Structures are given as C-alpha cells and as structure tokens.
C-alpha cells in the first residue's frame, strides 16, 4: 500500500518538472532531445529509485530515528536529579553526541549532495574530491545541528546564532580561494532535504517538549537554518586546507631543484 502511494507521490513530484523541461524543449527550442531513450530510462530510474528510497526511509530510518530521539530526550534517560535542583545543560550530553553523529552520517547519504559533489568533481578536473567535499559538508551540518539542540536547551534566540554564523561566513568568504565560494554557498542549501530533515525535526520536537518553558511549536523551528549555514563555513575551510597543502608541497618540491641548480 505505502509502496503504491509513494510511487504515485514521487510521480506527482517529477511530472511538473518533466512537463516544464520537455515543454520548453519541444515548444521553444523545437529540437529533439539528444539520446531520448537514454534520458527516458534515466527519468524512469530516478522515479523508481526515489520511490524505493523514500519507502525504505519510512520503513527503517525514520521510525528508528524518531524512536531514538524521543528516548534520548526523555527524562527517564537523563541523569537523576536531586530534589528541586535545576537541570544543567550538560545533562543532555548524549543528545548532543547523537545530534552530531546522526547529522554527519545522514548527510553523507543525502542524494542531492551526492549529485552536486559529482558535478563539482567533474568540472573541477579532479582538484575537488567528491567524497572529501561531502565529508566537509557533513561535519558542518553536524556542528550546526548540535548547536541547534544546544540552543533549544539554553532557550536563546535563534537570531544570535544565525547572525554569528553569517559573520563567520563573511570572514571565511574574504579569505577563501574565489573558485570555491559559489560551490560552498550551494552546499549549504542542498544538505537539508530527504533524510536529514525528518530526523532532526523529531530531535528538536522531543527536546522542546521535554524541557520546561520551551514550546514545541515555537522552538522546534530553527535547526534547519543553522544546519544550512555551517556547511558553507566548513567547505571553505576544506578549500583553504587543500590550497595550503598544495602550496606547501610545491615549495617543498622547489627546494631541491634550487639546490641542484645552485
């Protein structure tokens, strides 16, 4: 049953986009699509693949993720509290560790990030390693989500965190190699789609429900925003490290040749 509903749902997702693309191709460009059979097979695979992917997520990863999010934020799980004492933010340490680990690991499996990193590896001519790029994004994402859970525990305004992250992004932008900047900004937007959002939403909801004084409706928002910003910072960091290493090996190679000529 869910299989059919999901196939139908994904078809409704793909159809408008396919209609726009093929409509413009035949009505405005008025040229046949190159290698039409291959493109159609590709579309079919995208449809079937995405449907299976979503059904699998619904059946395995989402229920597990949500179960664990509620279990970890439940007060039975936290260290016992002496009568009348205030809970310290560090009591939630397993939540932070889980947020970091689940944020990083789901990002590695995120299909749209795989797509962008494949393209980046292809057009950079090998200077960008797709897997390293995804690891950089995953670390940024994990940091952003962890910070988001900590913000919910502390109850501080989201704006402070977002503006601080903006400032970091701007500082990093001024110091990074220019060619990485557009890719870095793009990786911020692609990280939060299929797998990650439902699991981190469950984590935010669980925390906001469990902590006194937080409203699940108001404080549940904001995790996605932070998760989008930190990958920009880490991807630029990755480029800076790669550039630094490249110049270091170059200068190391230069030295012996200087000696030989001298």
């Amino acid at each position: 049953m869910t299989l059919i509903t999901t196939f139908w749902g994904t078809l409704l997702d793909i159809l408008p986009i396919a209609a726009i693309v093929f409509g413009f191709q035949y009505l405005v460009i008025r040229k046949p699509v190159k290698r039409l059979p291959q493109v159609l097979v590709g579309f079919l695979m995208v449809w079937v693949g995405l449907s299976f992917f979503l059904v699998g997520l619904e059946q395995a990863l989402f229920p597990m993720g949500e179960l664990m999010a509620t279990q970890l934020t439940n007060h039975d799980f936290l260290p016992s509290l002496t009568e009348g004492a205030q809970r310290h933010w560090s009591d939630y340490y397993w939540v932070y560790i889980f947020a970091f680990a689940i944020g990083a690991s789901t990002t590695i499996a995120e299909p749209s990030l795989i797509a962008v990193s494949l393209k980046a590896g292809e057009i950079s001519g090998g200077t960008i390693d797709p897997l390293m790029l995804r690891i950089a994004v995953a670390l940024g994402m994990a940091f952003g989500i962890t910070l988001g859970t900590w913000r919910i525990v502390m109850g501080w305004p989201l704006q402070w965190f977002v503006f601080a992250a903006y400032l970091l992004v701007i500082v990093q932008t001024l110091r990074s190699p220019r060619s990485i900047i557009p890719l870095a900004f793009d990786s911020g937007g692609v990280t939060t789609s299929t797998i990650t959002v439902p699991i981190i939403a469950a984590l935010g909801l669980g925390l906001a429900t469990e902590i006194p004084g937080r409203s699940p409706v108001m404080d549940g928002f904001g995790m996605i925003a932070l998760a989008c910003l930190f990958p920009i910072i880490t991807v630029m960091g990755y480029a800076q490290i790669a550039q630094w290493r490249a110049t270091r090996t170059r200068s190391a190679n230069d030295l012996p040749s200087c000696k030989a000529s001298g």
Partner: protein
Amino acid sequence: MDLVVSLARQLKDSLRDLAPVVLVMAFFQLVVIRQPLPDSLALMDLALGLVFVVLGLTLFIKGLELGLFPLGENLARAFVKKGSITWLLVFAFALGLGSTVAEPALIAIAARAAEVVAQGGLIDNSVSAQNSFAFALRMVVAASVGLAVVIGVVRIFKGWPLHLMIIAGYVLVLLLTLLAPAEMVGIAYDSGGVTTSTITVPLVTALGVGLASSIKGRSPMLDGFGLIALASVMPIIFVLIFGIVGIHLIPGVDP
C-alpha cells in the same frame, strides 16, 4: 552490459554511503539506549527498509547521470545557441516556481507555520484563516525561488560575483529580522532550507553548469554554481517581508 557494471559499482558506493547511518543507529541502540525495540518495529521490516534505501539510492544516482544531468545541460546549451534570453528567463522562473509549489516539505512546514502565527495572534485562530495563510506562504516561497533562479541565471550571463550578492542578502535578512514579528523569524529562516528538493537540485545544478560552460568567458566552477545558494536566501527575505506587510493583505485572516 555497461549499465549493469556501472550499477554494480554504484551499489557498492551506496552501501558505503549508508553504512555510517546504520552504524550510528546501531551503536546508540545497543550501547547507549539499551532498551528493547517496540513491537511495531520488527527487525525484518527494518532490514527490508534498508535494502530498499540502498537499491533506491543506487537507481536514483545512476538515473541522474543518464537522464537529468544531460537533459539539463543540453537544454542550457540550446538556449544559449538560440540566443533568446527572454525565454530562458521564463524557463528559469517556471522551473523554480514549479518545483517548489508542490514540495512536500514546504507543504508540511507551511501548515505548522500557520499554527504558530495563529497561536501568536497574528491571524485569526480559525481553520479557514490558517489554510489561506499556509497557501499564501507557499505561493510566496515558490515565487521567491522562481525569482532567485531568474536572478541566478542573469548573474551567470553578467558574471556578477556571487559572494557580494549573498552578503547583500544577509544584510537584508538582518534588517528585516529587526522589523518582522517574532513568530515569523524562525519560519522564514527554515523556509530557505526546505525549498531545494532532491529532483530540483540536480536539474538546477546542471542548468547552471551547462550555461556557464557554453557562455564565452564564464567558468563553470566560478559561475556555474550558486543558483541553489540564491534559492536558499531569497525565500528568507520574501517570507520576512510577507510577515511585515503581507499577512494583512490576505482577505479574511485578520483576527
């Protein structure tokens, strides 16, 4: 035959990509939480679900390489050859709008946002007012993504530096945040993240890279990326503006 070999290679990559999630979940379940799974989660179902995820991811990525990527890039080249910027911009707007309007994540977040603003007293606490707010919010976000793709395509033609545009966008977000009602701020920030779906991202990326590589003097690395970045900032700006001036323009929602 080639397809089978490349599918097998992709299958191996998919297994590698999903291993971390499975390991993290297994570790927390077995070492940290140490509670039996509820009856609703049978181990067989979980295993079957994982098989689906791996197979689905494999087919999806291969399908992108065969279908969506070449189609997007060839279309971009054809537009440049034809030399009709107007049609290209119409296409860009339609693609951005069309792929966002029906996005399930956006529908979900718009419904939750309507609850928040109704609780905050910004709109009337009735079902009809919430529905029209959620619909208006979706339209605002979809139109802003359409506009973002249009601006992004113009940027590729003109070679404008992306980081200046994004920083200008951040400054705008900062100023608008000070003016917007508190209930709208979190919604606005999150709406930037949910707009870019799994099918839109590869197509929009292929469009940008295709355009940048067929226009003289543009580098695909420097100019081809950036469409998604604009599509993530623009909705924040539009939703904040909508929160400041737009809400009261929807008929019949005022409390």
